[in-house]
């Protein structure tokens, strides 16, 4: 595991959650893309992925490209991606590259879990 980046997985209320820490840059490329075969969807039959960015201090275009690959792969499998803890500056970058069309940004984890609960009931 690269010391500049860490992704810790947990499962809560049927959603797969990755707590990201450090720099979402080239150091995250191998870690995040190698951690799971995203083309297969999510494990345990989950349809919802949540990225927690609260401990991410730097994101560059390499990290953004990694996120696009994951979000795109999951979309093909009918999975939805959510995120929280993103600073206004990085939210602006995500909007510029079109990420926010497919990765919904919420203020915190609780609001995402509530949204997921609603989606499950639909």
């Amino acid at each position, binding site marked *: 595991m690269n010391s500049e980046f860490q992704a810790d997985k947990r499962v809560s209320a049927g959603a797969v959650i990755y707590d990201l820490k450090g720099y979402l840059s080239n150091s995250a490329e191998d870690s995040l893309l190698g951690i799971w075969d995203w083309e297969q969807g999510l494990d345990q039959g989950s349809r919802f992925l949540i990225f927690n960015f609260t401990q991410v201090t730097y994101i*560059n275009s390499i990290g953004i*490209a990694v996120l696009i*690959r994951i979000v795109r792969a999951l979309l093909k499998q009918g999975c939805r991606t959510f995120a929280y803890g993103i600073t206004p500056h990085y939210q602006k970058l995500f909007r510029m590259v079109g990420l926010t069309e497919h990765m919904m940004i919420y203020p915190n984890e609780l609001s995402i879990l509530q949204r997921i609960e609603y989606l499950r009931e639909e």
Partner: protein
Amino acid sequence: MQDAQFEKRWSMPGVYGSERVMMQKVASAISRINPGESRLDDMMTVIAEAFLNAIEHGNQSDHSLQVTLQLIVDREKYIIRIFDHGSREPVIPGEAPLSMKWKADHPRGWGLFLINRLADRVTFGKLDGSVYIEILFNRLHFVGLQQLENKTKRS
């Protein structure tokens, strides 16, 4: 160009991670010149992306080569030049539509995309055998002053 209020150069090894150190050096300088600069985050992202392009494209990932940043600040603007050891002046490629970029197998190349959107002007040049990208940010208080002056002249 107005007389420079501040001018400084920094050189760093062209390796991943150096871009973050460079960001800190420039952020520290700008914060001394203009505490609370509202476009600092945009400038930092632009510096990081231009630095990464210099490593990967200009220096062709030869990590023994350096990347140099020059910061010039005057009353009107910030000019950031990032020099690499590329042999030819880069040409700004035509930008693919967002939908096409998303479909690419390896959707990279977002660096210049972001630089173009965050900065006020981007140009490329060659100086003393080095290739550089020049990125300009207008100082917003100056733009505000100009607008006020124009308004006063008209009234």
